[in-house]
């Protein structure tokens, strides 16, 4: 699974699950999502469950944290590190 594929999956999930009428371009890879409340913490939890199933990885309890999930870049590199 390439980084780009993970990124596409994350973006598609976020756009499907949160944004009503938001443009893809608005969602920057490096913009903070949870700390700025652009996405709700529940959406972040749903994303974790989705990524675990999709990529067959498991997040430890302490890893399901804003620090690992706050930007698309962080999410992508975290999932990637789990897959190695």
């Amino acid at each position, binding site marked *: 699974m390439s980084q780009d594929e993970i990124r596409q999956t994350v973006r598609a999930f976020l756009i499907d699950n949160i944004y009503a009428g938001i*443009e893809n371009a608005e969602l920057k890879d490096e913009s903070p999502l949870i700390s700025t409340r652009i996405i709700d913490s529940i959406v972040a939890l749903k994303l974790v469950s989705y990524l675990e199933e999709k990529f067959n990885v498991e997040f430890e309890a302490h890893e399901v944290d804003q620090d690992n999930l706050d930007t698309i870049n962080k999410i992508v590199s975290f999932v990637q590190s789990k897959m190695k």
Partner: protein
Amino acid sequence: MSSRLQHLFFDSAKKDGSHIALALASGEQITYEALSELVNDFLKYFKANGIVKGSRIAIMAPKSISTVAIFLATLECGAAYIPIDIETPKERLNQILQNLDPHAFIAYTSDFPSEILCQQLFLTKALNESLSITFLPGENHSEDLAFILYTSGSTGPPKGVCITHENALAFTDWSLATFSISNKDRFSSIAPFHFDLSVFDLYVCFACGGTLFLVDERTTKNPRLLAEQLSKQNISIIYTTPSLLSLLLNFGKIEKNNFSSLRMTLFAGEIFPVQHLHALMKQWSHVSFYNLYGPTETNVCTWFEIPKPIDEQRTEPYPIGKVCGQLEAKVSEEGELLIAGPNVTIGYWKRPDLDLKIFWELDGKTYYRTGDHVESIHKNEYTYTGRMDRMIKKRGYRIEPEEVEAVLMQHPDVMEAAIISDRDQDDFTILIGFLSLRPKAEISVIAIKEHCLSFLPSYMIPDQIYFIDSLPKTSSGKIDLKKLGQ
């Protein structure tokens, strides 16, 4: 029977000072005796700085041993404490402090509003070093207040619900008489201190000499970690919102943790969707579940034990149940639940305009108008059927949509704004904002959320935002909220 809330703690400290009063996930913990000493340190410091009966101490700090000690020391001074959400945006904090006129404000140095100039960076040696305090010339009040809890206000700024010692003790006495609780119990403080559920966590725990596990704010947003901590800490009593329990159930992997110490789960603040409640009861089949009901202004006023075995056919939410013994309930002709008795607040802090709306004098008694529509199922036993006004309950928090709309309307590009609530596919309440923009205005959803975030706490930020050309109107020209909901 104690007549001061803090005596619940000091009496238990005298009985068994070596028992653990507070514990944290970090492993930090403190006995009743050591906590008493810490409270005394703060007490001396506060008194030396002019805190007396009728003073008010506002505190915007994370949950910690020091925070709890400050609450108790404030009460021992005869003063009232005001816990403020640590995520409160600056604008909102200013509104609260302006309304409150406190004698002291405690927070992280970086969280101090620029208006509060005289800042002392030093506290007693007991206090967490990162916090600062400022003493201010507030005007003393004459009521016997224990604390003030700020909640969403429909006409703009947040309103402070004044809780007296008598109010709080009426609630703790009822709790102690209703539930069999002992010093062997390990309580969990999941709700933030500015939320009225914390009154149970702190004072019912202290009254029976139990141990209170302080869950930090970050963990409450990570159900997997929360489940792990509650299990490791051998928590026996949980009191929280249906939303948080649903999160534990759906995202907490509770089946991987051992909850054999848990014996009682109390929930309040909103309707518990039956399918989630039943699923949780199956996971925790050894636990008793209770639905507690009551606004901040009265604390719990009705309660209902969820019957076992589970009624699988049931789809409608469980009743709010029977009225607590020390209270009296009436239902108005319109179906509104009215509550009188020792729990009922004396009113909002410096908002006589609101006090006029919430109290009704009937048969020589003062009734609080809950704003909740109920139906009577048996004598003195009720089922909740909806709100009389537009108030929304999200994760147990009260949200007056008018307050969110007022913030949206402050944005220069916004012409009209309306907020409604809906439920997502998992039955969680979400806020939906509908906006029409001024001609030629171009603004993104993200920019709107960022605007809201500088005025409102995070639970009040609309989850979804739709831009439409103009909002539908009723024949009288008002925004047609029913139509928006379709």
